[in-house]
């Protein structure tokens, strides 16, 4: 399987390389086309499907698809109801968006690694990393968006003065000498939130991919390797039945928690 590669390292490296397109000078202007296309297509499919379902919803006896959607909605709504007080319609919408999108992107892990690589190779595309959440750009984009919303909500709930007061006067006290320390502390908190969101998801997905690739490499060892690899792959995939939704759920819950913290005035 890894025959056309120079070695295991090359094989893994290849599978973890994004399809890059440069849109300008310098490294920053590179776009990971595979990440963007996979995630946008998945998002369009997922949310388009939910939209189609939501156009036919009825307050009467729900269809099975509607019941499933309602299950998802009620699940997110109940989780968020417990932590976010006040008008939570936007937060629930955000939570469902996060959960569904992250779940779909994570779920690409279930596709066998080489099916995708070989498939795209067949049409002349040499690099295609299917799991968009194993690209730190995606997770960081989500996390930074969430933190943007946290800052926006803080201003909205506390007002400019209130938020400034919180930034400079907590947690140590309102003495002017303590202002820099307070602000430093708050800044660390503000930076650590998106980093913890982004790196947790990215780390999980990236490491999971590496394990999948290592298992795939077992097939170098002949028939026995293929058999062992199949069993191990199945086991790791079954484990990901838990990891994939769990990571999506954690991302959603932390999003709601951060927004609830921002929304609550102290």
């Amino acid at each position, binding site marked *: 399987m890894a025959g056309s590669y120079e070695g295991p390292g090359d094989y893994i490296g290849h599978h973890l390389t*994004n399809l890059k397109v440069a*849109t300008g000078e310098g*490294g*920053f*202007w*590179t*776009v*990971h086309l595979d*990440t*963007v296309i996979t*995630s*946008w297509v998945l*998002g369009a499919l997922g*949310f388009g499907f*939910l*939209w189609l*379902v*939501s*156009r036919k*919803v*009825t*307050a*009467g006896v*729900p269809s099975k698809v*509607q019941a499933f*959607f*309602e299950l998802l*909605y*009620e699940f997110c709504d109940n989780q968020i109801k417990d932590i976010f007080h006040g008008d939570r*319609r*936007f937060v*629930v*919408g*955000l939570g*469902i*968006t996060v959960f*569904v*999108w992250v779940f779909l992107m994570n779920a690409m892990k279930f596709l066998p690694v080489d099916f995708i690589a070989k498939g795209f190779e067949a049409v002349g595309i040499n690099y295609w990393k299917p799991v*968009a959440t194993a*690209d*730190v*750009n*995606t997770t*960081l*984009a*989500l996390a*930074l*968006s969430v933190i943007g919303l946290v800052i926006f909500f803080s201003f909205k709930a506390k007002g400019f003065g209130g938020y400034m007061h919180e930034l400079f006067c907590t947690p140590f006290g309102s003495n002017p000498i303590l202002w820099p320390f307070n602000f430093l502390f708050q800044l660390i908190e503000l930076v650590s939130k998106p980093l913890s969101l982004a790196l947790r998801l990215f780390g999980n997905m990236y490491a999971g991919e590496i394990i999948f690739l290592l298992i795939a490499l077992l097939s170098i060892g002949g028939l026995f390797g293929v058999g062992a690899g199949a069993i191990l792959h199945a086991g790791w995939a079954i484990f990901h039945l838990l990891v994939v939704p769990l990571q999506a759920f954690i991302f959603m819950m932390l999003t709601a928690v951060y927004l609830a913290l921002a929304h609550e005035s102290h």
Partner: protein
Amino acid sequence: MNINMTLLLQALGFAIFIFFTVKFVLPPLAAAIEGRRRQIADGLAEAEKGKAALFTAQKEADKIIAEAKARAAEIVAQAEKERTATIEASKNEARAAGERERAMAAEEIAQLSVKAKEELRDRVAELAVAGAKRILAREINPQVHADLLAQLKAEL
């Protein structure tokens, strides 16, 4: 870990999906769930009201039945009374009729007895006259009395 333009594109995609979900996907569903919740609440309230109405109706029915029972008992008592009264009346009437009959019979008996006495008296007078006649016939000398008899014949 190279951060680049992809991040901005993903953030843009995220924003679009959030907007789409919040604006178009969730409101109909939330409205449907809310509508169903209201329907269920209304249904429960209706059921509660129906139960209360049933309770009232049951009480009303019980009252009416009790009233009807009382009325029936009254009617039965009334009828009983009337029956007794009627029986008493007919008894009295019958007794009165019997009394009258007896009185009439007694009167007739009395009349008959008077009549019989009179007849008897007449017969006694006749017998007395006959007896007297026989006594006289023996005592009277027809010659002595012939003038008298002749006188009587003449007068006839």
